[in-house]
Protein backbone atom coordinates (compact mmCIF):
# COMPACT_ATOMS: atom_id res chain seq x y z
CA UNK A 1 0.00 0.00 0.00
CA UNK A 2 1.01 3.51 -0.84
CA UNK A 3 -0.11 6.12 1.71
CA UNK A 4 0.41 9.89 1.58
CA UNK A 5 0.17 11.90 4.81
CA UNK A 6 -0.13 15.70 4.62
CA UNK A 7 0.01 18.01 7.63
CA UNK A 8 -0.66 21.37 6.00
CA UNK A 9 1.47 24.46 6.45
CA UNK A 10 0.21 26.23 9.57
CA UNK A 11 1.63 24.92 12.85
CA UNK A 12 3.58 21.74 13.59
CA UNK A 13 1.50 18.56 13.85
CA UNK A 14 3.36 15.99 16.05
CA UNK A 15 0.23 13.84 16.49
CA UNK A 16 0.32 13.00 12.80
CA UNK A 17 3.99 11.99 13.10
CA UNK A 18 3.04 9.56 15.90
CA UNK A 19 0.31 8.05 13.70
CA UNK A 20 2.82 7.53 10.89
CA UNK A 21 5.26 5.81 13.26
CA UNK A 22 2.54 3.42 14.43
CA UNK A 23 1.49 2.64 10.83
CA UNK A 24 5.14 2.10 9.83
CA UNK A 25 5.56 -0.38 12.71
CA UNK A 26 2.35 -2.26 11.91
CA UNK A 27 2.84 -2.33 8.13
CA UNK A 28 6.59 -2.31 7.40
CA UNK A 29 6.11 -3.21 3.74
CA UNK A 30 3.96 -0.15 2.95
CA UNK A 31 5.29 2.95 1.24
CA UNK A 32 4.66 5.96 3.47
CA UNK A 33 5.26 9.55 2.36
CA UNK A 34 4.82 12.53 4.67
CA UNK A 35 4.58 16.21 3.74
CA UNK A 36 5.24 17.56 7.23
CA UNK A 37 4.89 21.30 6.60
CA UNK A 38 7.51 24.05 6.89
CA UNK A 39 9.00 24.32 10.36
CA UNK A 40 8.51 20.64 11.19
CA UNK A 41 11.51 19.30 13.09
CA UNK A 42 12.37 17.07 16.05
CA UNK A 43 9.20 15.79 17.66
CA UNK A 44 7.09 16.87 14.67
CA UNK A 45 8.84 14.33 12.41
CA UNK A 46 8.26 10.56 12.38
CA UNK A 47 11.31 8.69 13.63
CA UNK A 48 11.21 5.57 11.48
CA UNK A 49 13.52 4.59 8.66
CA UNK A 50 11.76 4.10 5.36
CA UNK A 51 9.27 6.93 5.77
CA UNK A 52 9.93 9.54 3.10
CA UNK A 53 9.57 12.96 4.70
CA UNK A 54 9.80 16.46 3.26
CA UNK A 55 8.57 19.80 4.69
CA UNK A 56 7.00 20.81 1.36
CA UNK A 57 7.53 18.77 -1.81
CA UNK A 58 7.96 20.74 -5.05
CA UNK A 59 4.59 21.00 -6.80
CA UNK A 60 5.41 18.52 -9.59
CA UNK A 61 6.81 15.95 -7.20
CA UNK A 62 3.83 16.30 -4.90
CA UNK A 63 1.50 15.73 -7.84
CA UNK A 64 3.28 12.46 -8.71
CA UNK A 65 3.20 11.31 -5.07
CA UNK A 66 -0.49 12.22 -4.83
CA UNK A 67 -1.33 10.26 -7.98
CA UNK A 68 0.62 7.21 -6.77
CA UNK A 69 -1.08 7.23 -3.35
CA UNK A 70 -3.90 4.73 -2.77
CA UNK A 71 -4.91 6.53 0.40
CA UNK A 72 -4.38 10.13 1.55
CA UNK A 73 -4.42 10.95 5.26
CA UNK A 74 -4.79 14.71 5.57
CA UNK A 75 -5.33 17.48 8.10
CA UNK A 76 -8.74 19.12 7.50
CA UNK A 77 -7.34 21.70 5.09
CA UNK A 78 -9.67 22.62 2.25
CA UNK A 79 -6.92 22.57 -0.41
CA UNK A 80 -6.10 18.90 0.15
CA UNK A 81 -9.72 17.90 0.65
CA UNK A 82 -10.84 19.57 -2.61
CA UNK A 83 -7.96 17.92 -4.48
CA UNK A 84 -8.88 14.48 -3.06
CA UNK A 85 -12.59 14.86 -3.81
CA UNK A 86 -12.00 16.07 -7.38
CA UNK A 87 -9.72 13.11 -8.05
CA UNK A 88 -12.06 10.64 -6.25
CA UNK A 89 -9.03 9.76 -4.12
CA UNK A 90 -9.70 7.78 -0.95
CA UNK A 91 -9.00 10.00 2.03
CA UNK A 92 -9.12 10.02 5.82
CA UNK A 93 -9.22 13.33 7.68
CA UNK A 94 -7.37 14.10 10.91
CA UNK A 95 -8.51 17.57 12.05
CA UNK A 96 -6.02 19.86 13.77
CA UNK A 97 -7.19 20.71 17.29
CA UNK A 98 -6.77 23.87 19.34
CA UNK A 99 -6.41 21.87 22.57
CA UNK A 100 -3.22 20.34 21.10
CA UNK A 101 -1.99 23.77 19.86
CA UNK A 102 -2.33 22.63 16.26
CA UNK A 103 -4.36 25.61 15.00
CA UNK A 104 -5.72 29.03 15.95
CA UNK A 105 -9.31 27.82 16.21
CA UNK A 106 -11.31 24.61 15.84
CA UNK A 107 -12.73 25.27 12.37
CA UNK A 108 -11.03 22.06 11.15
CA UNK A 109 -13.48 20.04 13.26
CA UNK A 110 -16.39 21.78 11.52
CA UNK A 111 -14.76 21.24 8.13
CA UNK A 112 -14.23 17.53 8.77
CA UNK A 113 -17.82 17.08 9.99
CA UNK A 114 -19.25 18.96 6.99
CA UNK A 115 -17.19 17.10 4.39
CA UNK A 116 -18.12 13.84 6.08
CA UNK A 117 -21.81 14.73 5.93
CA UNK A 118 -21.77 15.51 2.21
CA UNK A 119 -19.14 13.14 0.82
CA UNK A 120 -18.84 10.53 3.54
CA UNK A 121 -15.08 11.01 4.02
CA UNK A 122 -14.13 9.48 7.40
CA UNK A 123 -12.45 11.58 10.10
CA UNK A 124 -10.87 10.79 13.46
CA UNK A 125 -9.92 12.78 16.54
CA UNK A 126 -8.63 9.80 18.49
CA UNK A 127 -5.26 8.74 17.18
CA UNK A 128 -5.59 5.01 17.99
CA UNK A 129 -8.87 4.83 16.05
CA UNK A 130 -7.17 6.56 13.13
CA UNK A 131 -4.23 4.13 13.20
CA UNK A 132 -6.66 1.17 13.17
CA UNK A 133 -8.57 2.67 10.24
CA UNK A 134 -5.39 3.15 8.19
CA UNK A 135 -3.81 -0.20 9.03
CA UNK A 136 -7.04 -2.07 8.21
CA UNK A 137 -7.86 0.01 5.16
CA UNK A 138 -8.98 -2.00 2.13
CA UNK A 139 -8.15 -0.42 -1.24
CA UNK A 140 -11.31 -1.93 -2.76
CA UNK A 141 -13.45 0.48 -0.76
CA UNK A 142 -13.00 3.37 -3.14
CA UNK A 143 -15.05 6.53 -3.08
CA UNK A 144 -18.25 6.69 -5.07
CA UNK A 145 -17.56 7.33 -8.74
CA UNK A 146 -20.39 9.81 -9.14
CA UNK A 147 -18.63 12.20 -6.77
CA UNK A 148 -17.30 14.26 -9.63
CA UNK A 149 -20.84 14.51 -11.03
CA UNK A 150 -22.04 15.90 -7.70
CA UNK A 151 -19.23 18.44 -7.59
CA UNK A 152 -19.85 19.53 -11.21
CA UNK A 153 -23.57 19.92 -10.55
CA UNK A 154 -22.90 22.08 -7.47
CA UNK A 155 -20.45 24.21 -9.41
CA UNK A 156 -22.64 24.81 -12.44
CA UNK A 157 -25.48 26.02 -10.19
CA UNK A 158 -23.00 28.23 -8.32
CA UNK A 159 -21.56 29.53 -11.61
CA UNK A 160 -24.99 30.54 -12.93
CA UNK A 161 -25.79 32.46 -9.72
CA UNK A 162 -22.35 34.09 -9.58
CA UNK A 163 -22.54 35.35 -13.16
CA UNK A 164 -26.03 36.71 -12.58
CA UNK A 165 -24.74 38.51 -9.47
CA UNK A 166 -21.65 39.92 -11.20
CA UNK A 167 -23.79 41.25 -14.04
CA UNK A 168 -26.04 43.04 -11.53
CA UNK A 169 -23.25 44.70 -9.52
Amino acid at each position, binding site marked *: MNVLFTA*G*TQFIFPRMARVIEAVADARPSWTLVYQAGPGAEGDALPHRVGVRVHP*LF*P*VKEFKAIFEAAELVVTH*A*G*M*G*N*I*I*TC*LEASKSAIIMPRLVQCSEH*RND*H*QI*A*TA*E*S*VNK*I*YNVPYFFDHQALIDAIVNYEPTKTMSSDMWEN*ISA*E*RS*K*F*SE*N*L*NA*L*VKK*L
Partner: protein
Amino acid sequence: MKILYVASFGGHWVQLLRLSELITADESVFVSTWGQHNKAASYYLEDFSVRELWAGLRQLPKALRIVKICNPDLIVSTGAAPGLLMLFAGFLLRRKTLWVDSIANSQRLSLSCRAAQRFATRTLTQWPQLETRRVHYLGKLL
Protein backbone atom coordinates in the same frame (compact mmCIF):
# COMPACT_ATOMS: atom_id res chain seq x y z
CA MET B 1 -15.11 42.90 -17.30
CA LYS B 2 -11.70 42.76 -15.64
CA ILE B 3 -11.49 40.85 -12.36
CA LEU B 4 -8.74 40.96 -9.74
CA TYR B 5 -8.67 37.68 -7.77
CA VAL B 6 -6.96 37.60 -4.37
CA ALA B 7 -6.23 34.81 -1.86
CA SER B 8 -3.44 33.66 0.40
CA PHE B 9 -1.63 30.48 -0.62
CA GLY B 10 -3.05 27.08 0.41
CA GLY B 11 -6.73 26.18 0.69
CA HIS B 12 -7.94 29.72 0.00
CA TRP B 13 -5.89 29.79 -3.20
CA VAL B 14 -7.23 26.40 -4.36
CA GLN B 15 -10.78 27.71 -3.86
CA LEU B 16 -9.99 30.99 -5.62
CA LEU B 17 -8.78 29.16 -8.75
CA ARG B 18 -11.92 26.99 -8.82
CA LEU B 19 -14.11 30.07 -8.29
CA SER B 20 -12.40 31.96 -11.13
CA GLU B 21 -13.34 29.13 -13.50
CA LEU B 22 -17.01 29.72 -12.66
CA ILE B 23 -17.13 33.45 -13.40
CA THR B 24 -17.13 34.82 -16.95
CA ALA B 25 -14.57 37.60 -17.38
CA ASP B 26 -12.62 39.23 -20.20
CA GLU B 27 -9.48 39.38 -18.10
CA SER B 28 -8.44 37.86 -14.79
CA VAL B 29 -5.44 38.95 -12.70
CA PHE B 30 -4.27 37.06 -9.61
CA VAL B 31 -2.79 38.24 -6.31
CA SER B 32 -1.45 35.83 -3.68
CA THR B 33 1.00 35.60 -0.77
CA TRP B 34 4.72 34.93 -1.08
CA GLY B 35 5.76 31.31 -0.97
CA GLN B 36 8.57 29.15 -2.19
CA HIS B 37 6.18 27.12 -4.31
CA ASN B 38 3.79 29.81 -5.31
CA LYS B 39 4.60 31.32 -8.67
CA ALA B 40 1.14 31.44 -10.21
CA ALA B 41 0.12 35.00 -9.31
CA SER B 42 1.01 38.36 -10.89
CA TYR B 43 1.28 40.28 -7.59
CA TYR B 44 2.18 39.21 -4.06
CA LEU B 45 1.52 40.38 -0.52
CA GLU B 46 3.08 39.12 2.71
CA ASP B 47 0.83 36.71 4.56
CA PHE B 48 -0.61 37.80 7.91
CA SER B 49 -3.42 36.89 10.28
CA VAL B 50 -6.50 39.08 10.63
CA ARG B 51 -5.43 39.65 14.26
CA GLU B 52 -2.11 41.21 13.18
CA LEU B 53 -3.59 44.56 12.21
CA TRP B 54 -0.27 46.36 11.88
CA ALA B 55 1.24 43.76 9.53
CA GLY B 56 -1.80 44.29 7.36
CA LEU B 57 -2.06 48.08 7.38
CA ARG B 58 1.65 48.39 6.62
CA GLN B 59 0.83 46.78 3.25
CA LEU B 60 -2.16 48.99 2.47
CA PRO B 61 -0.14 51.32 0.18
CA LYS B 62 1.00 48.29 -1.82
CA ALA B 63 -2.58 46.98 -2.03
CA LEU B 64 -3.79 50.39 -3.23
CA ARG B 65 -1.02 50.45 -5.83
CA ILE B 66 -2.01 47.00 -7.16
CA VAL B 67 -5.64 48.12 -7.53
CA LYS B 68 -4.58 51.31 -9.33
CA ILE B 69 -2.21 49.50 -11.70
CA CYS B 70 -4.67 46.69 -12.53
CA ASN B 71 -7.70 48.93 -12.65
CA PRO B 72 -10.22 46.07 -12.20
CA ASP B 73 -14.00 46.33 -12.46
CA LEU B 74 -14.37 43.81 -9.64
CA ILE B 75 -12.14 42.42 -6.86
CA VAL B 76 -12.92 38.89 -5.62
CA SER B 77 -11.42 37.12 -2.59
CA THR B 78 -11.88 33.77 -0.83
CA GLY B 79 -9.64 34.86 2.10
CA ALA B 80 -7.79 35.14 4.23
CA ALA B 81 -6.55 38.45 5.76
CA PRO B 82 -4.51 39.59 2.70
CA GLY B 83 -7.70 39.20 0.64
CA LEU B 84 -9.56 41.32 3.16
CA LEU B 85 -6.87 44.01 2.82
CA MET B 86 -7.17 44.04 -0.99
CA LEU B 87 -10.96 44.30 -0.73
CA PHE B 88 -10.52 47.23 1.65
CA ALA B 89 -8.13 48.89 -0.83
CA GLY B 90 -10.78 48.35 -3.51
CA PHE B 91 -13.43 49.88 -1.24
CA LEU B 92 -11.26 52.99 -0.71
CA LEU B 93 -10.82 53.32 -4.48
CA ARG B 94 -14.57 52.80 -5.06
CA ARG B 95 -14.26 49.45 -6.84
CA LYS B 96 -16.85 46.70 -6.69
CA THR B 97 -15.80 43.96 -4.31
CA LEU B 98 -16.96 40.38 -3.62
CA TRP B 99 -16.01 38.22 -0.62
CA VAL B 100 -16.69 34.47 -0.86
CA ASP B 101 -16.07 32.90 2.55
CA SER B 102 -14.08 29.65 2.55
CA ILE B 103 -16.09 26.43 2.46
CA ALA B 104 -14.04 25.44 5.53
CA ASN B 105 -16.20 27.80 7.60
CA SER B 106 -19.28 25.63 7.85
CA GLN B 107 -20.41 26.48 11.38
CA ARG B 108 -19.41 30.11 11.72
CA LEU B 109 -18.43 32.87 9.29
CA SER B 110 -14.71 33.66 9.45
CA LEU B 111 -13.55 36.77 11.30
CA SER B 112 -12.39 38.21 7.95
CA CYS B 113 -15.84 37.56 6.45
CA ARG B 114 -17.52 39.35 9.35
CA ALA B 115 -15.19 42.31 8.73
CA ALA B 116 -15.70 42.17 4.93
CA GLN B 117 -19.50 42.40 5.21
CA ARG B 118 -19.08 45.95 6.57
CA PHE B 119 -17.60 47.34 3.36
CA ALA B 120 -17.66 44.75 0.54
CA THR B 121 -20.23 45.24 -2.25
CA ARG B 122 -21.40 41.63 -1.70
CA THR B 123 -20.47 38.98 0.86
CA LEU B 124 -21.19 35.29 0.28
CA THR B 125 -21.03 32.15 2.44
CA GLN B 126 -20.83 28.63 0.98
CA TRP B 127 -23.20 27.26 3.63
CA PRO B 128 -26.95 28.09 3.47
CA GLN B 129 -27.36 27.80 7.26
CA LEU B 130 -24.94 30.73 7.76
CA GLU B 131 -26.94 33.18 5.62
CA THR B 132 -27.73 36.51 7.26
CA ARG B 133 -29.27 39.78 6.09
CA ARG B 134 -25.89 40.88 4.74
CA VAL B 135 -24.21 37.57 3.91
CA HIS B 136 -25.86 35.53 1.16
CA TYR B 137 -25.66 31.96 -0.13
CA LEU B 138 -25.48 31.39 -3.91
CA GLY B 139 -23.90 27.94 -3.95
CA LYS B 140 -20.72 26.09 -3.06
CA LEU B 141 -17.61 24.64 -4.67
CA LEU B 142 -18.24 21.11 -3.36
